[in-house]
Each structure stands twice: as C-alpha cells, then as structure tokens.
C-alpha cells in the first residue's frame, strides 16, 4: 500500500469522531477509491485525487452525523517558515482514543487515550494517564512504565520514576536499582545524588560502599571529600580500589561487584 496514501487516510480518520469499525470501513474505501482514481487519472498524489483531508473528514463527519475533531479553531493563512502566524487552539478538541478489539481477560490489548486527562487502561496503555502491563503516559502506572511521572512494579523510566525493582529518571526511586539525577534505592543507586543501602556512585554518594565526588559511606573512595570509617581519596589504580573495598566488605554480593566494576570505568570523570 502506498505510504503517502496511508498517511493521507490517517489524516482524514484522525479528525472523524466515529467507532473503530467505521474507521476501518472508511480506511478501506478511501484506499480503494484512491487506487481506482490514481489509475484512471494517472495521478498518485492523494491531495489531487481526493482534496484536502480536512475537507474530506468534514464531509464524512457531517454526513455521518458525528463530531469533527479540529485541533485549531483558527489558523492564519500567513506563515513564517511554514508556521502559521496565528493559531488558536480549539477547546473542543478532545484528542484521540483507540481501543483494540482484542482483549485479554476483558482488558484491551492496546488502549491509547490522549484526550486531556484521558485514562488509558490496557495490556499496552498509552495516554495522559495510563495503566497497563506496559504503560506510557504523562502519569503512567504499570509493570513497565514510561512517563512524566511513572510508577512501576519492575521498571520505571521517566521524569520522576518510582519502581519496585529498577527506576531511571530525573528523580528515580527504586527497590533495587535507581539511576538518575537524584537516585534513591534500597540496594544500588547511581546518579547526581545517589543514596542507597548497599552501593552508591555519583556526585554525592551515600551507601555502605560509595564512590563519588563527595561520599558518606562505611567504605569508599572520593575525589573531593569523604565521611566514613574506611574512606580514601580516589587513586589511579582501580584494581587497588576494588581490592580495598573487598577487604573491608568481604560479603559484597556479586551483583554489587558487577555494577561497581562497570562504574570503575567512569571513575576518571569524578576527578
């Protein structure tokens, strides 16, 4: 199927407030019509074949008795670098919603809802507020979540991310592993400010074992200042630092050792 035709039809459908089954019919019919006209008129440009998508959508909406979604109430014809000089948002624009027919235990496989404060609930959910196994949204809640603010059971990624296992974000709070501007975790944290129980690495690092510019730890290495029982200034030889840490904390888990090994590659940046 022609990509330009596909994009054109999507532009039409985006503006018509009707059920998915109707959208499917319109999509098929417009494709068939374009194919037919293209062959007859020897022209492939969808705009020349059917006209402006806004007008096509308007006519469909009017004749089907459904709402027309227009993002802007007014758009000036005069443009600067392709951008209209005046553009007034339409407050009636209600955004877009898609729910897949396929469900698992009554939950839609995919639910997209980008209406203002619209809630998307699905196995894969995407929306202003989203809840799902895989969840993407302004505020997202899920097993794996991505969003402005994300709450996750396993993995949360976002401006602010809170997760039971791994969080990555501006503010990252996690049960196991947090990476972020400010990272707080029960086990390992890496970030601008990293606070954890077991291991922390960052500008400011606080944990049992810490490596950073400033640290507060039982054992650790710092480049500027350090507080703690066995804290030392960072040295050239990373193996020496590791051996020192292992000697002071022999029960360090292999996972922490692994993460610490990787962090050692970046120790130079702390100097």
């Amino acid at each position: 199927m022609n990509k330009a035709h596909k994009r054109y039809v999507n532009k039409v459908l985006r503006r018509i407030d009707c059920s998915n089954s109707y959208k499917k019919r319109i999509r098929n019919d417009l494709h068939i019509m374009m194919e037919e006209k293209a062959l007859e008129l020897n022209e492939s440009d969808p705009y020349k074949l059917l006209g402006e998508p806004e007008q096509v959508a308007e006519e469909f909406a009017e004749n089907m008795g459904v709402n027309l979604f227009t993002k802007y109430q007014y758009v000036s014809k005069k443009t600067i670098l392709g951008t209209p000089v005046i553009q007034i948002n339409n407050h009636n624009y209600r955004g877009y919603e898609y729910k897949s027919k396929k469900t698992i235990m009554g939950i839609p496989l995919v639910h997209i809802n980008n209406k203002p404060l619209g809630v998307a609930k699905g196995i894969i959910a995407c929306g202003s507020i989203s809840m799902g196994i895989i969840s993407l949204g302004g505020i997202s809640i899920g097993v794996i979540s991505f969003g402005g603010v994300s709450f996750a059971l396993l993995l949360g990624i976002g401006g602010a991310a809170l997760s039971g296992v791994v969080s990555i974000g501006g503010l990252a709070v996690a049960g196991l592993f947090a990476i972020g501007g400010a990272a707080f975790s029960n086990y390992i944290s890496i970030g601008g400010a990293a606070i954890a129980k077991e291991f922390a690495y960052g500008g400011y690092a606080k944990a049992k074992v810490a490596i950073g510019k400033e640290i507060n730890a039982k054992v650790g290495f710092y480049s500027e200042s350090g507080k703690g029982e066995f804290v030392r200034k960072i040295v050239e030889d990373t193996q020496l630092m590791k051996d020192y840490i292992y000697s002071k904390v022999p029960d360090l888990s292999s996972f922490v050792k692994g993460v610490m090994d990787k962090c050692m590659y970046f120790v130079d940046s702390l100097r």
Partner: protein
Amino acid sequence: MKDLERIKKQLKKGTLEIIILRLISKKEMYGYEIIQQLEQNSNGFYSLKEGSLYPVLYRLEDSDFIESYMFHEEGKRKITRKYYKITDKGINQINDYLKEWNNFVFITNKILGIEGDINE
C-alpha cells in the same frame, strides 16, 4: 443565492439515499462508478465526493438494503473493487421509496401550484 445553495444541498442530501439505492438496484456498481454515473446522468448536478457517498452506502449496508463484495480484477488493471448489490430487502425498500417519492413530488407540486413539466 446563499439560501438557494443551502436548499439545493438539503434537497440533494435528502434524495441521495433513494438515488443511490435505485442505481444499485439496476446494476451492481462500485464506488467510483456510482460517482461517475451520478455526475454524467445529472449533467454535473449530483457531483458527489467520497465524504457524501460512503456514509450513504454505510447506512444502506447497515440496513441490509445492499451488500458489498470485493472483486479483484485480473489483467491489465490489477485493482480491487468493492461492488455493491441490492438485497431482497433493498428491492422492497426501493419500491416503497419510489412510491413515497412520487407521492411527495405530487403533493409538493400541488402545494407549490406546479403541474406537469416544471419548465412549462
């Protein structure tokens, strides 16, 4: 002039369903063919766009007056066409529509004081 356009639009809209069902009752047709036939037979008076045609076809199909099927044409023009054909329910409906239309035209003309050919 604006009012005349509005009335014309309304009249066209009101009759489109009958006209399209009538066309399909005579012959199985595909979408573009309906548009072309209407335009030719009305000397451009019924110049339909997709946004007007398909909603009517959807209503007729949903009411079981017509049904559609896909036909893939082989040969030079390898394209898929969606043909519409009238159902038994549709045949009864078009007969009712035509009776109603005759009645409507007769009564409306009578009220308007028009008898016989409108051009007389």
